[in-house]
């Protein structure tokens, strides 16, 4: 186990390096720099001042010097400064991180609350009307693009019926720290979280359904039944015990999605999280923010897969051997 863990972590180091180089040079290749937007257009700022400013910010140094500086700062938790918002990128991300985290966790919980029972029911009552309905739903949720579904949900429940707020993460004027604030935040979460969860259940439902169908006929289950174990216990103790463990491992992959933010959901529901920040920053050419966000997502993705691989290998020793 330790050998596997160590080997798996060692694989990550070159990946991290390649990721950082890739992202840095991609960011450098962006047209214009932080000074070329609003500041350059301002006639009061002369070309000479602009050039001095560029020199001071180190924008004229060779690329590899800038990369070295960027990486050094990265290790100290300094992700540079947002030229648009005039604050440190770390602070900017920190201010949005909580929102994205709430939304991500809400989507994650809802996804499993919906998909685990549906998957089990679908497998247990295979080929009944119930199973066919659930399978039909998985086809729909697999195929439906998230942005179309979100828009329709927002249009129907937000605008037409007016049941839910149509934008933001909290109403203006609600005092932070009060109970009303928490309720209000939760109220804003419901619609985006439902939209996100309803279209991301497919994999878990299909996995559980197949697992239950396969395990149902295995000898150890037959033995349990013939010994008179009640049907509900056959499922909870014998069948699900094996099937639910790998789901814990999938959480690692999901962790990535939780923090990386969902571009479509956040942009459609006007939810101020990291996904929205990314889209705004790229439109405003605020490349230090873009770079930091892509790097953060890549990093989280690497950690997420690492966690998943480790949990999977712990649950299923065959993976360690391979």
């Amino acid at each position, binding site marked *: 186990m330790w050998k596997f863990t160590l080997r798996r972590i060692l*694989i990550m180091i070159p*990946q991290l390096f*390649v*990721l950082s180089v890739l992202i840095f040079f*991609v*960011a450098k*290749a*962006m*047209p214009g720099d932080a000074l070329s937007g609003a500041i350059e257009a301002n006639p009061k700022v002369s070309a000479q001042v602009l050039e001095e400013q560029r020199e001071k910010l180190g924008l004229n140094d060779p690329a590899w010097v800038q990369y070295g500086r960027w990486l050094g700062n990265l290790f100290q938790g300094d992700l540079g400064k947002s030229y648009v918002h005039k604050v440190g990128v770390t602070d900017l991300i920190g201010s949005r991180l909580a929102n994205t985290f709430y939304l991500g966790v809400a989507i994650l919980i809802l996804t499993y609350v919906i998909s685990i029972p549906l998957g089990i029911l679908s497998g247990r009552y295979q080929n009944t009307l119930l199973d066919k309905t659930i399978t039909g739903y998985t*086809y*729909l949720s*697999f*195929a*439906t*693009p*998230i*942005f*179309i579904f979100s*828009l*329709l949900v*927002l*249009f129907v429940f937000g*605008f037409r019926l007016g049941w839910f707020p*149509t*934008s933001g993460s909290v109403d203006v004027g609600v005092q932070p720290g009060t109970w009303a604030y928490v309720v209000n935040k939760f109220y804003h979460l419901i619609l985006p979280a439902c939209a996100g969860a309803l279209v991301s259940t497919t994999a878990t439902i299909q996995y559980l359904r197949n697992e239950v169908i396969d395990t149902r006929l295995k000898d150890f289950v037959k033995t349990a039944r013939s010994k008179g174990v009640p049907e509900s216990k056959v499922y909870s103790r014998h069948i699900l015990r094996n099937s639910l463990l790998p789901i814990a491992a999938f959480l690692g992959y999901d962790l990535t999605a939780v923090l*990386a933010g969902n*571009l*479509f959901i956040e*942009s459609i529901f006007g939810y101020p999280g990291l996904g929205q920040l*990314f*889209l705004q920053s*790229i*439109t405003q050419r605020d490349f230090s923010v*873009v770079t930091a*966000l*892509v790097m953060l*997502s*890549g990093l989280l*993705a*690497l950690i997420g*897969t690492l966690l998943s691989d480790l949990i999977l290998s712990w649950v299923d020793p065959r993976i360690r051997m391979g």
Partner: protein
Amino acid sequence: MGMRVETVAPIETIQKSPSNWSILGRELLKDKMAIGSLIFLFLFLIGIYGSIALINQDEVTKIDLMAIQAAPSADHWLGTDDAGRDIFGQLVIGARNSFTIGFMITILSAAIGLTIGLIAGFFGGLVDNVIMRFIDFILVLPFLMLVIVFVTIIPKYGVWEFIAIMTAFLWVGKARLIRAKVLAERELDYVQASKTLGTPNWKIITFGILPNLSSIVIVNLTLNLAGNIGIETGLSYLGFGLPDGTPSLGTLVSSATNPVILEQYWWMWLPASLLILVLILAINFIGQALKRATDAKQRLG
């Protein structure tokens, strides 16, 4: 003796069991949703490609200040947008662009993924190891974010650049799938026999293994086509998809980013949204029926 084995074997298999293709066809016709989807797709394709001569893009995108945000009428079947341009005409052109480009991305990424997957799986060893590490790495990358970044930084951004960016990320999933299948396939007797007989590797790959993967590839192509149309329209919705001169279905949907339009001028975004939804569902239903056909356990009968 080698000759005899090679000529007799294929005839026997054809007589013994139905070919992959006839199984695919039979399964497709047993599924009512799939038949409906096939009919829809057929009409859709006739509609978007048959209208090339009828609907002129310059005509449709001409700004008409007399008919701004007009509701659906006999003149404008689905109304007009905030520059007085006919929505129905834009819908047809957008659908044509989205489908064509989604199709090209699918074919290109399949071609690359198939080639690399076949090579990695068949030869194994160091080649396989290097390719797989590379693929694992690309799969971990934040795909959507990077596509958006690339779309923004490419200087002369056009349709081909978009296709190239998408393909650069999308071939990896296909390569992984094909490699896994080839790994299983190359251990089978027929491959070992061909090797023993001295058949060159490229011949074993193209005439031996590839035909056996055809049904999986077809299923995967179909499902990917639906997925790729979804990604393209989604990116176009965000404003990072097809370039300006090439309207996509997602471009039409993006008018809904304005809350006023979303709430009051439904004809500007709803038809395009529903068309994307139905199109992707239809392609998926066909794909799912084909998928069942390739898995004997799940066939309808």
